[in-house]
């Protein structure tokens, strides 16, 4: 009913899965336009503050998923602490906006700089590790960021930051601004994936040694993926801060990291339309399940298990078949 993002799709597509080469490009493009259209029209169906709030959250969540997809899906680096970058962005923006009385948009350049630095600080030492070890270290960093925010005076300790100015006064306008920003972010992530750098990320995922042998500086590519993921997460954090106007360490727990990762895996690792669809499902399903009241997270969990059993490759998996150019 109230879908929210750019390249996400009608559910029937999984079944028909068109395979012709030319149609694929159009596929994703039309799916993206259709998703964007649904997102833009949704408020005409239901524009209650409740519905708008949920749709805005879902859009922000889709942006997070498209960012984590660069790290996990394209590059194959398991990151269990992605909420750290979300937190860094939200806090940087929140602190600057409240302390210096700045409009939210003005904090964006600072957020980009800080998240890039955070990406380098966390990535530089950890990306020398492989697979499981990397996952554990990212998990640790995710907790470090949250606990730091919990204890620093400047971040407001456990109660966090209040009174962050929104981008606009009305929830409808904020929703539309969010949709546009998120759509741009998703298109950006998708274009990045199809470029020289995006291909290099996939080479690293498939076989690091072979990638090195063809001249890909694997360490730099992994760091680039990490930085890109950090920037996407950080900018989503700005929207998050503006949306809720209050942030606290509780918003950036391991559960948050796990949910974003779940969206990526559920949708189909490496597939942009897939992870967006996954994010929409993960963020909207608990709301749609309110009917079953206390059992909703139970049902939610069961549904996720069923999806992964039936479609282990994800709802809308990445295809290697490519468009003729």
């Amino acid at each position, binding site marked *: 009913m109230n879908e929210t993002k750019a390249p996400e799709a009608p559910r029937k597509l999984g079944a028909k899965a068109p395979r012709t080469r030319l149609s694929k490009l159009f596929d994703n493009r039309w799916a993206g336009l259709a998703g964007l259209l649904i997102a833009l029209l949704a408020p005409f169906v239901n524009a209650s503050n409740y519905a708008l709030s949920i749709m805005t959250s879902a859009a922000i969540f889709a942006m997070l998923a498209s960012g984590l997809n660069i790290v996990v899906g394209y590059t194959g680096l398991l990151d269990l602490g992605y909420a750290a970058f979300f937190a860094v962005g939200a806090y940087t923006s929140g602190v600057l906006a409240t302390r210096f009385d700045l409009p939210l948009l003005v904090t964006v350049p600072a957020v980009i700089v800080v998240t890039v630095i955070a990406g380098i600080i966390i990535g530089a030492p950890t990306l020398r590790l492989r697979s499981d070890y990397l996952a554990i270290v990212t998990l640790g960093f995710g907790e470090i960021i949250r606990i730091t925010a919990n204890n620093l005076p400047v971040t407001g300790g456990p109660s966090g930051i209040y009174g962050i100015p929104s981008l606009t006064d009305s929830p409808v306008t904020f929703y539309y601004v969010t949709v546009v920003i998120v759509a741009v972010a998703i298109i950006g992530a998708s274009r990045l994936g199809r470029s020289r750098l995006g291909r290099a990320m996939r080479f690293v995922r498939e076989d690091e040694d072979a990638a090195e042998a*063809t001249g890909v500086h694997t360490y730099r590519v992994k760091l680039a993926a990490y930085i890109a993921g950090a920037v996407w997460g950080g900018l989503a954090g700005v929207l998050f801060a503006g949306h809720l106007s209050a942030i606290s360490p509780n918003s950036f727990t391991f559960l948050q990291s796990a949910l974003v990762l779940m969206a990526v895996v559920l949708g189909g690792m490496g597939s942009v339309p897939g992870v967006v669809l996954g994010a929409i499902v993960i963020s909207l399903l608990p709301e749609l399940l309110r009917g079953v009241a206390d059992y909703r997270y139970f049902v939610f969990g069961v549904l996720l298990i069923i999806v992964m059993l039936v479609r282990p490759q994800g709802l809308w998996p990445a295809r290697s*078949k490519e468009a003729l150019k």
Partner: protein
Amino acid sequence: MTLLEVSELRLAFGGLVAIDGLSFSVGEAEIVSVIGPNGAGKTSAFNCVTGFYRPTGGTIAFDGQSLLGKRPSAVAAAGISRTFQNLRLFGELSVLDNVRAGSHLRLKQSVFDALLHTPRYRRTERACTAEANHWLDFVGLRGDRYSEARNLPYGEQRRVEIARALAREPRLLLLDEPAAGLNHAEKTEMLDLIRRIRDLGIAIVLIEHDMGLVMQVSERIVVLNFGKEIADGRPEEVRRDPAVIEAYLGSDTHA
């Protein structure tokens, strides 16, 4: 003129000496084979040259520049490509994307070109695809270029790996058992392919167990046994070398 100069190469893993004072050189557009029984240190020597292993001692120079301490991507940037003994394709990616990897170093495209789809992005992507197709034509790939590389038959995968190495436009190509697992007809095609690569002016170092192929294609053969070089010469010389015969067939005293 010498392109690759390996001298007094030593590689030890703890107490195990894998390569013990190996020296050989490769000239421009020359085909040199490295042969020897299993475990003689052939692939280890490749790994030293391409930066995957750090040699314990000795020097490796390519076109007069030392390769010691360089990471594999830097060695590739210097102009050396390689294939792997047990096929290392990017299995889930398309055949075309596999070969595009070879163009990685020469592709001048920034992140902003990619995000904004600038004319330069379109131009470089087109060029990269055209090159990949060119090299797939060159190696004579018959399979579907748009399907996942892992779905191709084994012999075709070998060709894709060589196309990927060639797309780098190297001056030296290291082939690690390119004919392993190929049938007779495919071996004949491989022989022809190796010669055509050399005719492009690319020097080739070949590790191969198929002696028929080695004898036909090589201009020079280096023979290793237990990490030591026991012969270096033209095929007909090496074939008659008593040390080589002993390494392969064993001597009376040991047998």
